[in-house]
């Protein structure tokens, strides 16, 4: 009952039953743990991978429907992808758990719209939940990767005022 999948440019035979969601095949059978389980129902985007360049929720996509689709996971980006490099420059991650999915969604966005507007960025990223609240840095990193100027309302470089702090009461 083996299924053949095309993952990160390689043809891979897997033993899992056809109805098994891709996420669990990636994680448990192929030990590719970069894609995460967050909700199991396609709500949070932590499991996002690409199929034929389109984002899919691997937690709710059975491997039986994939056919010959070319799957790309976070592992397939290689680490020096411009989006990953922008993520690192901006220190986007906090707990980091959602970031593989965030990055995959951003990769699709920039592949389809190399110079996205602010609204296009937010809209494209709305399917990926981050509980740590790294959203603003995600937006900044996407603009950076796209070579776009940061919006004026982005935080300016950290600056300090000249007033000294009063003594702490603790």
């Amino acid at each position, binding site marked *: 009952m083996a299924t053949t999948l095309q993952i990160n440019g390689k043809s891979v035979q897997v033993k899992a039953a056809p109805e*098994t969601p891709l996420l669990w095949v990636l994680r448990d059978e192929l030990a590719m743990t970069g894609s995460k389980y967050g909700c199991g*129902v396609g709500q949070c985007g932590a499991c996002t991978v690409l199929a034929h360049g389109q984002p899919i929720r691997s937690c709710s996509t059975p491997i039986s429907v994939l056919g010959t689709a070319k799957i790309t996971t976070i592992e397939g980006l290689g680490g020096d992808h411009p989006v990953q490099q922008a993520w690192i420059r901006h220190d986007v991650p906090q707990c*980091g758990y959602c970031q593989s999915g965030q990055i995959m969604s951003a990769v699709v966005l920039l592949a389809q719209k190399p110079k996205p507007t602010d609204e296009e960025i937010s809209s494209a990223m709305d399917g990926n939940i981050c509980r740590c609240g790294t959203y603003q840095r995600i937006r900044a990193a996407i603009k950076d990767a796209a070579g776009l100027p940061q919006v004026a309302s982005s935080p300016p470089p950290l600056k300090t005022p000249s007033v000294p702090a009063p003594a*702490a009461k603790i």
Partner: protein
Amino acid sequence: MTKILDRMAAEGATRRETLTVAATLVGGALVVGCSPANVMGDILSLGATKDFGPFGPFIKVEPNGWVTVICKHIEVGQGNHAGLAALAAEELDADWAKVKTEHAAANAKVYANSAMGVQGTGGSSAISNSWLQLRTAGAAARAMFVQAAATKWNAPVGEVTVQNGVVAHAKSGKQAGLGDLVADAAKVPPTTTPTLKDPKTFTLIGTDRVRRKDSVAKSTGTALYTQDVQLPNMLTAMVAHAPKFGGKVVSFDDKATRQVPGVVEVFQIPSGVAVVAESTWAARQGRDALKVNWDLSKTESRSTDQLAQWYRDLAAGKAAAGDLKWAAFEARGAPSAPGAAALETTYDFPYLAHATMEPMNCVAIVNGASCKLISASQSPTLDQLNAAKIVGNLPGNIEVQTLFAGGSFGRRTNFQSDYAAEAVHIAKTVGHGRPVKLVWTREDDMRAGYYRPMVHHALLITTDKDGFPASWRQRVVTQSIMKGSPMGTPKLDSTSVEGAMGSPYLKATPVVDAQVLSPDVGVPVLWWRSVGATHTAFVMEHTIDQLARKAGRDPVDYRRALYAKAGANRHLAVLNLAAQNAGWGRPPPAGWTRGAAVHESFGSVVAQIAEVKLENGVPKVGRVVTAIDCGTPIARDQIAAQMEGGTCLGLAAALYGKMTLKDGAVQEGNFDSYRVLRNSEAPTVETYIVPSSNPPSGVGEPGTPVIAPAVANALLAMGQPPTTSLPFVKT
């Protein structure tokens, strides 16, 4: 437990007085005290390794020049490892580019949090309680390298310098990397009293060079979380839990479960019925196929609407408190006959789930009394204690390997070690040292309780001729987080009221009568990022804004006057800094309205000015100007990140956060019903840090509680009615 104490006695704890353990909470931090004071760590660390490298338990230096800073606090996303590494690296004068971090092993004594007495992360205390400890460790290691170089080069110690990981003697022109000198330095007897730098001479701490060390791992999918652990022969477990809190298994039918390919075993444990399988998907399918007959006769079966009404009645004196006792948290002046109330109002807050991105999980390996946990634990000591009770061993003998957490917000520590204990029970039944990874689904996680408690506040305030509070009566009804803990119940659980207790507004009020009542409800509750401040900041700040408007005063000016009365200079400084950068006093951008709020928590004071508008009746937050006084800033970029992230978590709860019980059953289960903040709803936060030479104070939590009142105050400024309950969005 008796068995444990017997074993402790056998292993040398005989001279100890009866172990008396008392716990209180200060700012969300578990404070475990005992008598005599230092016995606790001694006992709980019995069995733990005391064998550390030549540079002590916090620093490793490799021959290739890399420096590892060992962090006793877990990295749950809050960026503390960047700051912790900087503390040691600064004093060691290490090359920051060759500094990395790792989680410490469990050792209740060596790695004790000085604010808690045992090992644990919480109360935004990581940096503050490591401020001297890690600097001392770095300085002590530096002294060893300097001595080693001086000996090797036959140079006076005073002439040897260290800079960016390079040890040098200018006169002789000799220099070597830290790595080159490891073998020699390791032989130098360490000093326990090294000279620390004058903070004015810091070259790393407080600079923008202090950045996260885990961004590469977390941007490439290679960071290891508990969910990702794979060990030879490992089984994956899921547990069927009762549909209501307090339910017990009567019987179960596992016929269908056992037919699921990959299911290995099904058995009862104290918290439900466990299904262990060869893969996560098999465990999930097996668990879903299980039929369990539950005894729900002793469960909590009230609805949250009923509880809320009960809380309101208790606060209003309409329901008898029975055996419950009101505890005063602020009392000042003699209450006189109340004049006409300037403001009489109430506020209601719902249960909140933490909803970390990585649901709770834990890997446990049990072989007889031997036990190892691999997990993201905020309190290895508690998990050791609870695991030790289950397997019959000394807490210090329980090995704990700590991994990154996919978020916590306070969820990954509680007195019962709920999910870790569950993993240990399963691994004990499996036995033979076979690793078991317990995983919870999102629904398991969301319905397991340990919520931010529901809270009701009732206030009655009179004002003087200038419109400032003359008397302040406050009644708070909320479950106590500390109540019923195995370590004792304090008369006053300060976590219920912190933030109201100690408020500068109360200090500035001549007559104060503020009390809290802690009813019993069968829903487990827990600290949730910023703990008491999650509601007290809202109550105090939204109330003050209403009073300012009643007095016809600008809300920022009104606060300034109260801070002056209370001597709250740090509040005043952050408010001024935020107001200045937000352009308070000048018109906001067209279509936006500003609201201000200020709150102190975990030793830090945060002011926010939020620009808000209503879109289809839902508050939309744009720019949020934030000012924080957190003492000496260590990792400026991560302070900003915590203000950004804390604001988002606080806003998510304010807009949508609400856990609902219907006849005791939790209604929400996933992100479709427990709505959280998404990218297009996330504000842009600007962070300004007050320069300070005070010791560092909290950063992880203080950014969370301020946004909700800032938004409510902006709504007031728009002419909207006061907000008397959260979340803002009711459906």
